[in-house]
């Protein structure tokens, strides 16, 4: 498996079928999850229908966070072992993670309007999510700004790793700073407090988001590899 990812040629062959597969899985899961979440699942006894936002909000939040962790690992691999594909993966993941984070922010504030009576509340978790979003933007901007390919990769890797170290510091300082946001209520000691009937659709959506993210990520990676090849040819021509 690792060997598959070690070498771009293998990866291209693997991703050639893996990408559409993920896409199909995503479609199927959404086909199941969306109606389940939006129609058949029960409304919350106090939040009413608005609770359905959770089925977008929570997966977006989880994957928004997890993707940055993934990028951190990938960056470490690419920095230490000069692993080209790991770098491509990190780069491909960034916009997706940023999008999920943005979705979490947007759905969150949409949700906040009815439940908290405000679009935005400067609460710990919200703020740290916003900071995460900014970290994503910084990473993307840096990748866009440095021209030299290899340097770009390694600098971005450093930024991503430093950001990873910084993330918990930010999170805890911000939470220490203030917290209004409801505490973890799904994975918490003593089992979940969310009605089990909500967990089914929730986790279907979580899986659907994962499949979608994978499909998009693989697509980005393939595009990046093609672009790199084209660029190489172009420069060869230029220097011939």
């Amino acid at each position, binding site marked *: 498996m690792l060997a598959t990812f070690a070498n771009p040629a293998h990866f291209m062959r693997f991703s050639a079928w893996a990408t559409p597969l993920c896409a199909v899985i995503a479609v199927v899961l959404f086909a199941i999850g969306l109606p389940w979440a939006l129609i058949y699942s029960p409304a919350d006894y106090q939040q009413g229908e608005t609770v359905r936002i959770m089925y977008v909000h929570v997966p977006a939040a989880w994957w928004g966070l997890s993707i940055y962790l993934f990028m951190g690992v990938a960056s470490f691999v690419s920095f230490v072992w000069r692993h080209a594909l790991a770098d491509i993966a990190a780069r491909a993941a960034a916009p997706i993670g940023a999008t999920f984070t943005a979705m979490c922010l947007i759905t969150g504030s949409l949700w906040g309007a009815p439940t908290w009576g405000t679009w935005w509340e*400067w609460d710990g978790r919200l703020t740290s999510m916003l900071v995460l979003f900014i970290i994503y933007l910084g990473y993307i901007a840096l990748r866009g700004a440095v021209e030299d390919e290899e340097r770009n990769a390694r600098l971005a890797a450093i930024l991503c790793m430093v950001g990873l170290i910084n993330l918990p510091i930010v999170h805890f300082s911000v939470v220490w700073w203030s917290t209004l946001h409801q505490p973890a209520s799904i994975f918490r000691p003593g089992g979940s407090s969310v009605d089990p009937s909500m967990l089914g659709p929730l986790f279907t959506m979580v899986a659907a988001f994962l499949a979608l993210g994978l499909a998009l990520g693989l697509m980005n990676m393939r595009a990046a590899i093609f672009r790199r090849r084209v660029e190489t040819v172009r420069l060869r021509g230029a220097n011939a």
Partner: protein
Amino acid sequence: MSAFSVAFRRDFALMWSAGGGVVAPLGFFVGAAVLVPLAMGPARDPLAAAGPPLLWVAAALAVLATIERLFQADLEDGSLDQMLLSPTPLELIVLAKGTALWCAIGMPIALAAAPVAIAMQAPLALVPAIVCSVALGMAAFVGAGLVGAALTASVRRGGVLIALIVMPFFAPPIIFGAAVAAVGFGAAFMLLAGCALAYLVLGAFGAAAALRLQAE
């Protein structure tokens, strides 16, 4: 193709790529706006009072953060000599630079002002006025920034110095802008527009005059 558009396209391309495209100014602005509540604490009321005006400080500082190298780079790599030798009046070339800066930084930030204003508890009704006023304000900041950048072009690491020179000129647009953020379109908005226009024109001439002295 007129020399103005040539200069504009070149500078816009340079700023766009260097700044990391539209993402960077947006991120900067949002980031600066986040620092404020972090410093003020999450309590709504003081934030609602302080927030929208502070958005102005953030916008002003986005310009400050960009202009330092505006002419310095041209001076150090010799491009300035070429601008001086061109038949096009230097004022026009400078204006092209300013316009490019406004398009590359000012417009994105003006757009970003909408969500930021909301996050800072600004009433929704005021948001359009805020966005337009920020767009105008950025033009004013750029105008003032041109002069500061030209004056300090030969000072390496003059970031703070330039800020110091320019800051006083930022006061009027900020005051008008804050007023707009409070009451929406109206007299303040007109004043802001006039201010922006005046700054851009004066800025172009002042900067050109300063640049002529920088080359020697």
